[in-house]
């Protein structure tokens, strides 16, 4: 059943099915119920990365060097791990700026430069041509093999046959027609091709299933599982070497590393990957699933590569069958017609998917960033006055698709035969890797400038052209091979494959090293030496700080000028068509709470920006800027003004941060103040209490003095005169003592008291004070018992103050002892680091609840109304203050009826 007509019919039926899927998806999208708005379809569409290169070429690569096919898929896996950081940023930037392609992205980043967009487009188109030719080669050679069934004849050995030449051309033309039908049916302002994405996702399923089917057939059908296959392969000396492929290969690891880096760049910057990942993305959240589903897809499709390669080598031991065709020739050799047809369709899927998306992406670039900027600048064409340009735009894109595919065919004719599939594809990978510095630099480094980007791209591309493309052409016989062997004009140092004498590396590694050195070097050096314009400064800030901005109109604040709403409307209608323009304006007006066209819209910066963004979706940022500028009068902002606006914005952020912080600090300060205020109030109340208590205490003796003196004044000869004078003297003494104590206290409390710490012998203090009090004790018949050790350590304190404390305690004890039966025990003892003094009396004792308050100011135990006060109520308070000042402690132990024991400690040796 594998005849030419059947195969051709099946192929067309398959393409028809794809078209039906695309058509259905487009219909659903128009109806507002998109089928592709789902993370699984998104992930599958990313698998457009897997092309005929993988489908046929990986096996070929594995058969020749074993491990070399894997970095192409491991690199992307590592890169995708960084997508959370990198791709989310690119997605956000692209959505905010309505980016339509990779060229648009780069041009927009570097000041909406049309020239830069053009350079990117040229590099992309030239760089991708080998890749497209690879797909054409794969389709045409797989076709020419499969029609030979049941014979297995390699395309090169069929002999001169015009039919074969034509296959590739026919494939190119059919694919061109198909792509035009897919991608340029109508103009979408957002450049979404939902139908295409649905078809691509379907193709990804088909190629995966086909590859897994043939892999399983070879592994389990022809051989008996992995173990059997690999043990047979191990017996073959040629394959045995491939089991440990990294050994002994010169630069084996360098090649592995560079291929990994290269494919890390490719997964980001291949135009078709940028198209499906960024432009066709409907929801940023889809990335979360794609981040692991897409690598999983790559893992799955690579599982059977090695078994297929080894199986093929074992099956065709004489080497007459090209390893790139094992996937197809193995089922053919086993007479599995249906499987062979499925494989052919799978390969067709892989190749057509790539060609469709790649050419659509490239045609958008060619139209928006190469042709339109030129046409719009040619005043002779009077494009500005044409009422409807949508037809022109579509025409340019269709032409570009045909042209790109024909150029791919041309490359296939020129250079396609000299290389294996993978080697052809790697040339394209190296070309798109040139975009990495300007894109990655552009989104993380504000310092990159337009001139720097141009210099980097041109330098990198030139090196790529010289070290990869020229040798490819030379090997195919289109340039003298002497160029490769002896260098241009015989200059050995400039040999394209050993530039500046760098040898020992494979061609791709060699080219990558030199092109990256040139690219990054020129980009950084020129960026740092030329200062950016106002436009560049603004765009750099919009791109790098994309996550810091709010709202979509980040650009509007940079615009100043005059415009009219109808002019803007007409401009939009010319490029997008009347209905799309109507829709856009109505939406804008509705968001402002107005109606279009009933209410006159204010043509302010926001509307102008909105129109420019809409336009950018159709014709690219650089062209959109030119077109909008043609209908509005814009006052160019100077770089200082742009800086000012940016600085203002960043300052506002800084200010608001600072404000937040200040308000937090303020709250804390308020709380502190409140607490302080409470404390102050408390102190104030205490002071009032103190004053009223002091005056009360002063008044009592004063009153009695005054009463007695009044009596004496009236009758100086009164009998009790002597007694009265005695009382007056006593009360005056009491008054004096009280006043002294109050003064003393206020000095201590305000910290103005003068302390003179000297070495004090406590034993001496005790005997002195007891001697001073002996008169009192004798009067009251109090027995005194002093127990002092022979030697005690000195303490550091003010001796007068300590005497004051001792006197206070002793007089208190004497005061409360019952006359005649009183007994006071004074004990001095040395403790670990202090001296302890106990003064025990056998008075009435102190209730436990009173023990705490007797140390307060003016507090005395007993009923103050009935009992006569025994003192000022300040003595114990002052004593405690003194002891505490010298680092000691003063306390009391007592209970009712058992006397009281006042004790204090003072640290020893502190002052020495």
């Amino acid at each position, binding site marked *: 059943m594998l005849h030419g007509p059947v195969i051709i019919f099946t192929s067309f039926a398959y393409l028809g099915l794809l078209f039906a899927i695309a058509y259905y998806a487009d219909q659903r999208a128009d109806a507002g119920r998109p089928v592709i708005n789902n993370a699984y379809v998104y992930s599958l569409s990313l698998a457009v990365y897997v092309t005929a290169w993988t489908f046929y070429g990986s096996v070929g690569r594995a058969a020749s060097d074993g*491990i070399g096919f*894997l*970095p192409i898929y*491991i690199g992307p*896996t*590592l*890169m*995708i*791990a*960084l*997508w*959370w*950081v990198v791709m989310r940023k690119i997605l956000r930037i692209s959505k905010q700026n309505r980016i339509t392609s990779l060229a648009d992205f780069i041009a927009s980043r570097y000041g909406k430069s049309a020239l830069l967009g053009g350079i990117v487009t040229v590099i992309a188109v030239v760089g991708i041509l080998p890749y497209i030719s690879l797909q054409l080669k794969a389709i045409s050679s797989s076709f020419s093999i499969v029609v030979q069934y049941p014979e297995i004849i390699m395309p090169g050995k069929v002999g001169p046959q015009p039919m074969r030449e034509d296959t590739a051309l026919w494939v190119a033309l059919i694919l061109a027609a198909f792509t035009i039908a897919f991608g340029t049916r109508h103009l979408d302002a957002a450049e979404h091709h939902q139908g295409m994405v649905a078809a691509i996702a379907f193709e990804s399923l088909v190629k995966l299933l086909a590859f897994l089917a043939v892999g399983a057939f070879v592994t389990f059908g022809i051989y008996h*599982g*992995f*173990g*059997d296959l*690999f*043990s047979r392969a*191990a017996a073959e000396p040629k394959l045995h070497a491939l*089991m*440990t*492929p*990294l*050994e002994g290969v010169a630069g084996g*690891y360098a090649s*592995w*590393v560079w291929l*990994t880096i290269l494919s890390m760049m490719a997964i980001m910057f291949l135009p078709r990957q940028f198209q499906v990942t960024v432009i066709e993305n409907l929801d940023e959240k889809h*990335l*979360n*699933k794609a*981040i*692991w589903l897409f*690598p*999983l897809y790559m*893992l799955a499709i690579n*599982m059977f590569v*090695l078994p297929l390669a080894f199986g093929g080598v074992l099956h065709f031991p004489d080497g007459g069958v090209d390893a790139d065709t094992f996937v197809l020739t193995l089922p053919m050799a086993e007479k599995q017609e249906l499987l062979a047809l499925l494989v052919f369709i799978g390969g067709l899927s892989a190749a057509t998917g790539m060609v469709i998306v790649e050419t659509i992406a490239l045609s958008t670039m060619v139209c928006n960033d190469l042709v339109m900027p030129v046409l719009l600048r040619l005043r002779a064409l009077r494009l500005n006055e044409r009422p409807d340009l949508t037809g022109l735009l579509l025409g340019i894109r269709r032409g570009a698709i045909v042209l790109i595919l024909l150029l791919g065919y041309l490359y296939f004719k020129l250079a396609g035969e000299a290389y294996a599939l993978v080697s052809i594809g790697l040339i394209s990978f190296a070309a798109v890797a040139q975009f990495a510095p300007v894109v990655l630099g552009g989104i993380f480094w504000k310092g990159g400038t337009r001139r720097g980007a141009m210099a980097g791209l041109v330098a990198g591309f030139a090196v790529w052209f010289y070290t990869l493309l020229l040798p490819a052409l030379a090997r195919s016989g289109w340039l003298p091979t002497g160029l490769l062997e002896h260098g241009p004009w015989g200059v050995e140092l400039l040999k394209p494959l050993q530039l500046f004498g760098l040898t020992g590396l494979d061609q791709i590694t060699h080219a990558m090293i030199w092109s990256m050195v040139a690219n990054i070097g020129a980009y950084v050096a020129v960026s740092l030496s030329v200062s950016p314009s106002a436009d560049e400064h603004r765009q750099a800030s919009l791109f790098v700080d994309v996550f810091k901005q709010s709202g979509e109109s980040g650009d509007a604040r940079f615009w100043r000028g005059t415009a009219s709403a109808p002019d803007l409307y007409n401009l939009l209608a010319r490029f997008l068509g009347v209905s799309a323009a109507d829709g856009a304006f109505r939406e804008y007006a509705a968001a402002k709470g107005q109606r279009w066209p009933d209410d006159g819209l204010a043509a302010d910066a926001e509307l102008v920006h909105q129109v420019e963004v809409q336009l950018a979706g159709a014709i690219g940022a650089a062209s959109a800027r030119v077109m909008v500028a043609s209908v509005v009068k814009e006052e160019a902002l100077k770089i200082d003004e742009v800086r000012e606006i940016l600085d203002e914005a960043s300052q506002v952020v800084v200010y608001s941060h600072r404000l937040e912080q200040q308000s937090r600090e303020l709250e804390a300060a308020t709380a502190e103040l409140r607490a302080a205020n409470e404390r102050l109030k408390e102190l104030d109340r205490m002071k009032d209490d103190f004053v009223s208590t002091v005056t009360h205490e002063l008044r009592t003796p004063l009153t009695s003095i005054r009463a007695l003196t009044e009596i004496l004044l009236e009758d100086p000869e009164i009998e009790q005169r002597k007694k009265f004078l005695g009382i007056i003297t006593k009360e005056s003494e009491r008054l004096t003592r009280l006043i002294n104590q109050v003064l003393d206290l206020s000095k201590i409390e305000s910290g103005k008291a003068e302390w003179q710490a000297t070495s004090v012998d406590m034993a001496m203090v005790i005997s002195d004070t007891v001697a001073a009090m002996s008169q009192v004790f004798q009067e009251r018949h109090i027995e005194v018992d002093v127990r002092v050790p022979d030697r005690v350590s000195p303490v550091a304190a003010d001796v007068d103050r300590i005497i004051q404390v001792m006197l206070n305690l002793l007089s208190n004890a004497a005061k409360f002892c019952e006359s005649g039966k009183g007994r006071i025990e004074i004990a001095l003892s040395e403790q670990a680091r202090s001296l302890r003094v106990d003064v025990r009396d056998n008075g009435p004792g102190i209730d436990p609840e009173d023990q705490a308050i007797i140390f307060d100011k003016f507090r005395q135990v007993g009923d103050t109304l009935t009992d006569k006060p025994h003192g000022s109520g300040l003595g114990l308070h002052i004593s405690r203050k003194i002891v505490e000042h010298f680092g000691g402690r003063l306390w009391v132990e007592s209970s009712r009826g058992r006397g009281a024991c006042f004790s204090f400690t003072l640290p020893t040796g502190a002052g020495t």
Partner: protein
Amino acid sequence: MSDSETRGQRFVALCMLGIVLFNYPVLALFNVPGTLFGIPVLYAYIFIAWAALIGMMALIADPDR
């Protein structure tokens, strides 16, 4: 630190882990003759490490799958 930043840092760490796993000298350790589950050691290692890496990416990117 926001959730987004945390995840970003985890991904960067994971990428570094991947770079170590698929590079000299770790690869050289497995570049030895012999088989694992009937598969040459180097290839078995690469596929297992690769699958583990993808598993971890799934855990970080899409925790509520």
